[in-house]
């Protein structure tokens, strides 16, 4: 990979790629020329730098897959994203929608990530069709900042529709996927999402004085990203500052890193704290 120093041409190229790849298919030409993809930065320079837009583009569909079944990490990570998406800079806080078949969500836990549950509207749908419909309605209405959907297997058509709805209403769509039961099937389902992430729990750093469970840590993988490459980070939820931080080097690193996606490339990236993706 060669680094291009001419920023203007990089921007122009990015805009062309975005147009070719169909992000913002319905945006006007002016939008495209200005490359005016509104983004919500993570506030973590390594993560923001890995995303071609300098942050998570809003008004797009993003997929969050849990690395293991029955794990709260993906929901927790989604909650931290919702906090960022609901509070755009300078604007009034906006509501978010969470569509799921069963509602195992627990308010006190979500509030622990700084999510204002007064602005969290839960939608329970019996069928997958109902859930996708509710997500689309929420996205198109523009009345909410973001819509989370726990849809087990949304196909390519469904994700395309969600992407278009997100563009139309300028809301962010987060599709929460549960992993396949068979571990052999690690190939991700075809999807029109702009980015796809995989979130798994990671052993926490020892708590102060060595007693008890430490701060929550997540292994966050950027599995797929339009115009970007794969990355993996170890993020930590800091209860003191109420934000995500890069976890410092593991003192007790596991014997081996979890197996990456087959065919994944090793990405050299000059990040001091980021853990390299081992294949």
């Amino acid at each position, binding site marked *: 990979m060669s680094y291009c120093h001419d920023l203007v041409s990089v921007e122009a190229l990015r805009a062309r790629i975005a147009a070719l790849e169909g992000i913002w298919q319905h945006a006007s030409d002016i939008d495209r020329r200005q490359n005016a993809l509104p983004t919500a930065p993570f506030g973590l320079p390594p993560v923001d730098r890995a995303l071609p837009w300098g942050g998570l583009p809003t008004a797009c569909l993003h997929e969050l897959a849990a690395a*293991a079944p*029955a*794990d*709260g990490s993906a*929901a*927790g*990570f989604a*909650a931290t994203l919702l906090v960022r998406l609901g509070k755009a800079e300078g*604007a*009034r*806080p*906006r*509501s978010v929608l969470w569509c799921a078949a069963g*509602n*195992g*969500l*627990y*308010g*006190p*836990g*979500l*509030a*622990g*990530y700084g999510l204002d*549950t*007064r*602005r*969290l*509207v*839960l*939608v*329970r*749908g*019996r069928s997958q069709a*109902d859930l996708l*419909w*509710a997500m689309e*309605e*929420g996205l198109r*209405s*523009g*009345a*909410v*900042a973001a819509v989370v959907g726990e849809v087990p297997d949304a196909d390519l058509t469904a994700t395309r529709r969600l992407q278009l709805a997100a563009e139309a*209403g*300028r809301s962010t769509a987060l599709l929460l996927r549960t992993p396949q039961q068979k571990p052999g099937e690690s190939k991700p389902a075809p999807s029109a999402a702009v980015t796809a992430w995989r979130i*798994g*729990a*990671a*052993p*926490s750093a*020892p*708590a102060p004085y060595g007693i*008890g*469970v*430490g701060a*929550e*840590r*997540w*292994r966050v993988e950027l599995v797929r990203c339009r115009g970007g490459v794969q990355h993996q980070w170890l993020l930590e939820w800091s209860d003191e500052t109420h934000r995500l931080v890069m976890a410092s080097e593991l003192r007790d690193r596991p014997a081996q890193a979890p197996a990456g996606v087959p065919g994944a490339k090793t990405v050299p990236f000059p990040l001091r704290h980021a853990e390299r993706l081992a294949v």
Partner: protein
Amino acid sequence: MRGRLIIVAADRAAQSAGIFPGQPLADARALEPALRALDADLGADRQALEHLAEWCTRYTPWTAPEELEPGGAGGVFLDVSGCAHLFGGEAALLADIATRLERNGVSARAAIADTAGAAWAVARFASSNLIGDLVVPPGGQCGALAALPVAALRLSPETTAGLERLGLRRIDALYPLPRAPLARRFGMHLCRRLDQALGRLDEPISPHLPHEPWRLQLAFAEPIGRREDVAAGLERLLAALCHRLAEEMQGARRLAFTLYRTDGTTQRAEIGTSLPMREGRHLSRLFAEKLDRLDYDFSFGLGVDLMVLTAPVVEPLEAAQASLVAVANDDAPEALGALVDRLANRLGPPAICRLIPVESHLPERAQRAAPPLDSAREALAAWRQTRPRPVRLFAQPQPVDAIAPVPDDPPLLFRWRAKLHRVRLSDGPERIAGEWWRAGAPAGAEIRDYYRVEDEDGRRFWLYREGLYHPAKTPRWFLHGLFG
């Protein structure tokens, strides 16, 4: 009755053949061998009468079905005070009812009088079928009832038989009689019925439907049947209703749309909104889903000839508002309200909720689902939780097999869903007692010791042991939640 089949009701043709209610079926068959007998179904009769009463709301909102008599006969009371002129007078109203019912295959007789009792008597016992005789002029009950039999006073069969035994066959025979002996002999019921029929005593009619002041209707000269036409009619009604709501600074919380079909049935669609609403476009979008589910399968000639839009629940809505359905850039509560309404109308209102705190230490009771736009004080309270709580909580704590040192150490390993988890780190115990002071609390509400544990993969769980340590008892462990 006593093993015999009895005729309950007979139509006009059968009656002209000499068949009457109360006759044994065998006798009736002897009279008319071609008789078609059907089993009586009083439940269905009552339902049909209620449908008829509902249909009659096209004339007046005050309609009430009568209690079915043992013979299966029944009627509908209509309070047409102030309504008759809309149909061209009382005689024209009666003629309209008679023709429409006749066309629908209902043989009926209707009468108009000052009192419900007099109208009842005339409709059933008047000898002529002329419209003029069925409309009792104001104050003319005395004369109209004079020649009718005493059965026309809505009396029990025993009272009627007793009166007839005394030779009191006509109602005018009762007029000059002293009241006290009559009441002693036959009970106050007779006097009350007489007074009600003559207008000396009030008889309230409890209406079939509550009176709805927010009511608009649209009638058609020719029946319509296409969905587009129904939708267009609804648009007009909504526009008129919203205009009226705006004038009176009100907003509708619930709307009902009723279609009256020429075959005498009705169809109804209802919507509800989470905020008072008078935005026609939004309301018609809410109705669009419901209109799809109505039945438009009309055979030729049939269709909808009247549509009525009512707003049973209306609340004050102060400020004039701009268009609600426009894409809002900030969090306008109206835009969110419009979204919540659309979701609730398809998925049902309980499916859309918000989590609000409840003052309870029990984890499963610490939150409650509330309507998403409820702005009550308790709904806006913040969570009072200082200890870490899981992001997902199981409604039913899941039993797990755990190995833990006694008396109250955290588990070393546990098995959940056939997978073994080795505990690497743990926090706890956090002791939470059952709410014994609460009425209806489960009897076995025991103390729970909660532990937050992390397994070797880094997954974090919320486990608890039920009850205090007891050497003779194997402790039961449950998984209650998943941390992020």
